[in-house]
């Protein structure tokens, strides 16, 4: 890794990297007030990833996404796309580079004055493809997104889901290596969202397109992303594999996002209600794919003469791996419960729910 910077980065290292954000900061100045939309963001998106960026509105996730095709330019830092600093390209080179970076939008942004066919043909004409090749490619794309019968319709006649499928077809027209998605499902109902996400998954699997998805919906991340970064106030507060982020979030924002879709942990109110009935000590046990079949819970309980009640919990599956959390009430003398907690912790991570939690 050392000395790589001197030679401008080793080729091999970049082979598998689709996008690399290197200490990216972006400051907006309007009427004397400055706003730091991105501060010191570093992330790497590997080829073939479906990489999710999640955050509340104003977290900077869309700004970050838009640096990938230089719709926004970093105030400092670099965005390396396919081995090149995208913001440093000449206007002409950028135009060509953008043809290889598809983009889809929350509001679809189709041209209302053109038919579905001509919307999809637009980027092909830009790329200077001959007319007969354009016809073939558009037909191929229409078939891929299942809109062959809508070729001559105008966008105003389409449903939201159909519009986004046209958006996807248009974004894929010039065989891009990368597809960036700015809240592409946020204007769609859950059923249509599912269909669009299925389509994106096919784009990734069948065409090997690296996809960078910005969303505020953790469900979207759970359903398609293999890696995720959580943003807050222009910073990446946590990033990792989707499984790791969902199964063991560490940052408070991440935890809030995870708990918006997974209900493994009781809320404060739920804890109060539990305590009204269960006066014993509450502990939370992490659950995941276990290698051993040791029935540690009943074994520990027996050894230390402690009884237990299951009072809350949930287990989920992500990428064929299980993870979850069970909240138990432990009943016994204080010293026995202490000893039981110590032994349970040998088998799985345990946290005690403190009185004022």
């Amino acid at each position: 890794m050392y000395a790589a910077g001197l030679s401008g980065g080793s080729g091999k290292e970049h082979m598998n990297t689709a996008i690399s954000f290197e200490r990216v900061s972006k400051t907006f100045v309007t009427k004397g007030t400055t706003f730091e939309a991105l501060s010191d963001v570093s992330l790497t998106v590997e080829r073939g990833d479906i990489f999710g960026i999640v955050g509340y509105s104003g977290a900077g996730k869309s700004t970050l996404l838009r640096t990938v095709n230089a719709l926004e330019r970093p105030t400092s830092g670099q965005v390396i796309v396919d081995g090149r600093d995208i913001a440093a390209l000449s206007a002409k080179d950028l135009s060509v580079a953008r043809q290889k970076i598809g983009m889809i939008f929350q509001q679809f942004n189709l041209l209302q004055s053109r038919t579905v066919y001509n919307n999809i043909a637009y980027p092909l004409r830009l790329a200077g493809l001959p007319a007969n090749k354009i016809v073939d490619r558009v037909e191929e794309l229409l078939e891929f997104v299942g809109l062959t019968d809508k070729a001559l319709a105008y966008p105003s006649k389409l449903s939201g889901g159909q519009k986004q499928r046209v958006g996807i077809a248009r974004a894929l027209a010039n065989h891009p290596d990368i597809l960036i998605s700015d809240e592409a499902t946020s204007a769609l109902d859950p059923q249509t969202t599912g269909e669009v996400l299925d389509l994106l998954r096919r784009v990734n699997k069948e065409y090997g397109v690296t996809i960078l998805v910005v969303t505020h919906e953790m469900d979207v991340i759970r359903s398609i992303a293999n890696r995720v970064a959580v943003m807050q106030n222009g910073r990446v507060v946590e990033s990792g594999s989707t499984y790791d982020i969902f199964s063991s979030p560490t940052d408070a924002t991440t935890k809030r996002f995870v708990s918006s879709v997974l209900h493994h942990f009781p809320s404060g109110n739920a804890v109060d209600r539990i305590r009204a009935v269960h006066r014993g000590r509450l502990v939370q046990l992490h659950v995941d794919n276990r290698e051993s079949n040791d029935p540690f819970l009943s074994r520990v309980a027996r050894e230390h003469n402690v009884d237990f009640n299951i009072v809350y919990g949930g287990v989920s599956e992500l990428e064929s791996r299980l993870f979850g959390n069970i909240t138990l009430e432990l009943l016994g003398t204080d010293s026995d419960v202490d000893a039981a907690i110590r032994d349970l912790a040998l088998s799985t991570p345990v946290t005690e729910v403190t009185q004022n939690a």
Partner: protein
Amino acid sequence: MRDIDLDALLPKLVKAFFETLHMVTFSFVFATILGILIGLVLYSTRKGNILENAVVFGILSFIINLVRPIPFIILIVAMIPLTRIIVGTSIGPGAAILTLSIVGGISIGRIAETNLVAVDPGTIEAGSAMGARPLRVLFTIVVPEALGPLLLGLTYIFVALIDATAVAGTVGAGGLGSLALTYGYQRFDWFVMFAVIVVLIVMVQVAQFLGNWVARKAMHA
């Protein structure tokens, strides 16, 4: 009640109608060309747009605002010296066309600017994201997307030009306006006046109907 001499009226009416049509058509064509150019310049030199230029935008905008508040009847008189230089005469349809084209062009310029500015910025962004350069975005996205409302605006100006042409009749432009004024205002021949009004109404209705139809075709809504 006086006899109504249709045989004498009809040829006058037909002649006046074609004079008006001639003035409106020519001034509309010139006004559209001038107006679209003004609209494109105003739009592109606007803050944040491709040819951002505060000086050009400011001067052009100032000139437009200078001309627009002047009532047409006063402007056509005030422009007589300029008309003499350019057209060679200050009376007749040719002279009126110059003033009509300038007034119409300035109005169309503002309308075109408004319609171009109103184009969904999302479509422009999509164009840039696909790799279209600014001029290409302007002519293949912004202009086509603005076309429907622009055609409605042009229809509005076409109707306004019919109106203005009648006004120009007071200063010797000929056409339906002159006819109505000569017979109605000076000779109190109400029948001729009403006949002119009916012709004007029919012209406006047809123009508006055609404009709506073309705009609807362009909007695909």
